[in-house]
C-alpha cells in the first residue's frame, strides 16, 4: 500500500469517527475533480459549486457506509454522479435526456485529424447535446462502463453505447471542421 493511500485511509477512518479537520483533508484532495465533473455536466459555475457542496455534505452523512472495499475516490465519485443526475432530472424534461439519438452516426467521409488543443476540447464537450455529453463524461473521462452508466442513469445500455458513439463522432467533427 503506497504512502498516499495509507494516509488517506487514516483520514477516512478519522473522518468517519466525526473528525471534521480530517474530512477537510479529504475535501481538499478531491474537490477539484468532483467540481470538474459537476461543472462539465451542468455547464454553470454557480450550480456546480452548489452541487459540489451538496456532494461533500452527503458524503459526510454517508461516511458510515463506506467500508473501504473500493478506493475512497471511487466511492465519493459515485455519490457525486448520483447527485449530478438528480440535479439534471430536476432541471426539466428528462424525457428528452434519455431517449436514444435519432441519427445514429454514419461516417460518410473519412477525416484526417490532428491532436486537439485542451481548451478546444472543453468547449467542444460543452457543445455536446446533454445526453451525449453525460455519457461521454462518464465513460471516457470518468471511466464508468456502459452497464454502470445504464444503472446510474436509468437509460438502456444500448442507448449509452449509441450516445458515446455519437459524442465521439460529434467531438471529432467539432475539433476538426
Amino acid at each position, binding site marked *: 500500500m503506497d504512502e498516499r493511500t495509507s494516509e488517506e485511509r487514516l483520514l477516512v477512518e478519522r473522518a468517519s469517527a466525526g473528525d471534521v479537520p480530517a474530512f*477537510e483533508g479529504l475535501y481538499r484532495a478531491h474537490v477539484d475533480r468532483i*467540481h470538474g465533473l459537476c461543472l462539465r455536466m451542468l455547464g454553470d459555475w454557480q450550480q456546480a459549486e452548489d452541487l459540489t457542496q*451538496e456532494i461533500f*455534505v452527503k458524503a459526510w452523512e454517508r461516511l458510515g457506509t463506506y467500508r473501504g472495499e473500493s478506493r475512497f475516490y471511487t466511492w465519493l465519485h459515485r455519490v457525486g454522479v448520483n447527485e449530478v443526475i438528480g440535479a439534471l432530472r*430536476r432541471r426539466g424534461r428528462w424525457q428528452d435526456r434519455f431517449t436514444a439519438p435519432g441519427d445514429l452516426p454514419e461516417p460518410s467521409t473519412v477525416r484526417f485529424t490532428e491532436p486537439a488543443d485542451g481548451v478546444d*476540447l472543453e468547449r467542444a464537450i460543452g457543445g455536446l447535446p446533454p445526453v451525449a455529453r453525460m455519457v461521454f463524461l462518464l465513460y471516457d473521462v470518468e471511466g464508468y462502463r456502459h452497464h454502470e452508466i445504464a444503472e446510474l442513469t436509468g437509460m438502456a445500455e444500448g442507448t449509452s*453505447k449509441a450516445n458515446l458513439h455519437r459524442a465521439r463522432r460529434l467531438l*471529432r467533427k467539432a475539433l476538426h471542421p
Partner: protein
Amino acid sequence: MTCRETLDHLDDLIDGRLAAGERQAVRDHLAGCLPCSRELAALRRLQGRAAELPGVTPRRDLWPAIRDRIEPSVEPAGDGGAGTNARLAPTRRWWPLAAAAALAVAVLLPRPGSRSTPDGRATMRTEADATPRVLLLETLEARRGELPAESVHAIESDLEILDHAIREIEGALEISPQSRRLRLLLADRRQQEAELLKLLARA
C-alpha cells in the same frame, strides 16, 4: 471490410467489445488503409485527452460553507448587530435569472430595464426585481383580458400556493440550515415557479 464498416467498428475496437474474428477483420483493413488508421489514431488521442481532463478548482473556497453544514456553529454573540448570524443560511437563487429576463422579452412585456414611476420618471429595475414571481404577475396582468377567467384564477391562486410553500420551506431552513433535503425541496419549488412562467409565456 469496407472503410465505412471499419469506421463504424472503431469505437467497439478501442472499447474492447469486438469478437476475435471482427477484430482481426478490422485490423486487416487498418493495415492497408491510411485514412482509417489516422481516424483510429485520432479517436485514441481523443480518448487519451478525455481521460486526462483535469479537475477544476471552484472560484471560491467551498469548505467554510460545508463545514458549517456538517458542524453547526456555536450561537452567535447576542449583540444583534455586529456579526452575521451564522445559523441563517443565505437564500440562494436557484432559477437562472438570465433565462427569466429573456422570457420577459419574449412575452412582449414592457422592456424589463425600466419602469415609470407615477411622476413619469423611469427607474431602473434591478436584477432582484425580475424574479419569476414578478414576471408571472406582470404577464398575467398583460394578458388578463385574453385568458379564460378560470385559468387566470388558477394562476393567481396557485402562484399563492407556490409562494406559501417556498416561504414555509425557507422558514424551516432557518431552524435547520443544514438540512440538505429542505434545500432540495426549495430548489424543486423554485424550479416549478420558473416552469410556470414558461408555461404562461406559451399559453
